[in-house]
């Protein structure tokens, strides 16, 4: 192997190593930052690390919404999936305009003591305006 080839080999190996390390670091961050999308039934049959963020989808149960602290918009409500499993959601903040009892919602947050502490509620809309689950 000539000197030039040797140099080129070193450069390629170095570049490859840098690329692999970068990709590995990216994948580590990525795996920490993903939200699992689950149904209340699947939630029931799993245990979670406290830091694991999940997204849960279901229908908001009629008349289940209660305000814990109205002035600060702290509320509790239940969602239900097709199997009829209930999950209690804790949320503090403004609800999306499409959020209604009896309609579909996706809640994102962390599980704690069998409740989902939601940081975000998503009520999806498409051009034909049907919230999910209807």
């Amino acid at each position, binding site marked *: 192997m000539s000197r030039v080839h040797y140099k080129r080999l070193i450069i390629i190996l170095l570049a490859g190593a840098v690329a692999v390390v970068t990709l590995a*670091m*990216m994948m580590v*961050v*990525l795996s*920490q*930052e*993903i*939200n*699992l*999308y*689950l149904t209340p039934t699947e939630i029931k049959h799993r245990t979670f690390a406290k830091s694991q*963020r999940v*997204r849960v989808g279901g229908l908001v149960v009629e008349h289940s919404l209660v*305000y814990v602290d*109205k*002035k*600060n*918009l702290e509320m509790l409500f239940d969602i239900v999936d097709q199997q009829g499993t209930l999950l209690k959601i804790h949320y*503090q*903040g*403004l*609800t999306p*305009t*499409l959020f209604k009892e009896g309609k579909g919602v*996706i809640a994102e947050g962390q599980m704690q003591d069998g409740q989902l502490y939601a940081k975000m509620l*998503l009520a*999806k*809309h*498409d*051009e*034909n*305006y049907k919230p999910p689950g209807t």
Partner: protein
Amino acid sequence: MGHLGEIALIVSQIISWYGVVWFKNRSDFLAFSARLAFVMMSLSLAALIYGFLIHDFDLVYVTSHSHSLLPWYYRIAALWGGHEGSYLLWLWLIYLWAVLTFSFSDHTLSTRALWYALLIAALMGAYLLFLSSPFTLFVPAGPDDGMDLNPLLQDPLMMIHPPILYIGYVGFMIPMCYVLAYFHERQSVDLDLLMLKQVVTRVVFWLTLGIFLGSWWAYRELGWGGFWFWDPVENASLMPWLLGVALIHLLRVANEFKAAKFWILVMALAGFILSVLGSFLVRSGVLISVHTFAADPGRGSALLLILMLLCLLSIGLMMRYKDTDQKPGGFLSRRLLLAYSAALMMTFVLFVVLLGTLYPLVMTSMGWGEVSVGSRYFSEILMPVIGLGLILMLFMDTKISFSRIILFLAGVSVLVLLYWPLGLNALIFMFLIIWAMVCQLTVKIPGSIRCAHVGIILILAGVLMHGELARSYEIAVGINQPYEQSDVKVHLVDIEQSHFDNLDQAAFTLMVQDHHSAFLLKPKRRYYASRDQVMNKSAVIHDGLTDIYAVMGESVGDGLWSLRLYFKPGVILIWLGAMLIAIGLCWRSYRVSA
């Protein structure tokens, strides 16, 4: 009129296919068929607009996106309110770009490029005609009234944001066709790199403007409170933009650095593929997004097919690439090296965004569960890259002069006076930002580049300020039931009900007090009876660099209304910066060349 529109569409497609099949080597005939097909497409588009204007509810598309009470300007905008109309506009823009760029040019590659443009148009046209025609009729007759345009879309920005964004998306077809033609001719004709650069700059200009308007719309009107969510739909528009910016920087070094040429060709091909990929992601509904306005899995597979065809075409022709330049690469000056690094950096950012966007798709298709990627993935990985970008910019001129030191100190003191409580990371970034800014303002570069660079620095400054200092309150207030805390007081002064064309409106008057001043904000809630839907219109007031932003929510009982209140410093810098980038790109690509 629906029939006329459909006939015009069919005729334009027949002309395109005819041109593609029979006039492969006749430049004059090919240009003529492209122009004729464009005219027919325009007719078809006009027919659909006319259908909206006269309330032709026999057309399924008009019925699902319009209403007899909808004002005329929204009826025109409703053309791109759904899937079919958007694609009609797409197709029309393909012809427009192709005719404007290739049919009047006498460059040798133009004929072949026009042929490829017609081929792509014909593929997309077949998709439109067979799978998503906007001219489908109700049989025997349509309903008496329409279902109305999605209230979220009833906004003045709806009239300009989608078409401008589409101009950008579709524009990437031009570099693609050009490079395909270059490969097709087996590199016997030289690439006009200057022309390529001009086109790419134009495309990025339209994309910048489109993304900016969309982000501004979401922030200001829709009451979502943020300017960027790292949502798949947003990423879909960001990816071609990143690629375009990388390509512009790469083209800067193309003449001196031969090794860059191959990558220029690859990226020119990838731009349009990313655009179509974005549209596939948005339209097929494979990803969970907060703003999917039209989703249909069946169409997704057809789009995927087009995407595959485009990829195969690109890769197939790329096999013909030979390294024709035997000259060794020249010595790169510092400026060129910086431009090259900037291109590499942008490409890296593109990969980060691509990975984050496609990861959920891979997971789902492998059956590993449904996931979505949180926005922190993007911010954490991109933070160091942004720092690197700033360092690249401040290395453009390293001379230390008296005026620079003065400028730097002035910047730092303004920062310290205005926003002292910053974390260490933010402080480092702020110093980098001010330094890079001083460098960009004083270095000798063309005004347009200066403009764009200052713009991107302003955006970074705004994002940083917002990230560090934004405050938000989610609370409930009622008339005579104010919300009081140590740092903010909110009074609900008045609620005023009124009725407009197709909506009922409640206008709230809020008085917000912080330490030194008081502001009156008037957020609104609108009720659209045709869709039984409520829309929030947020209210924003600028106080220096800080936006005070309020959006009303539901009534929660006991005379209380839910309310979200933000203090957002720096957001105005983001809009200013985006406009500067757009101005810089426009200036560079549309100036009259001597």
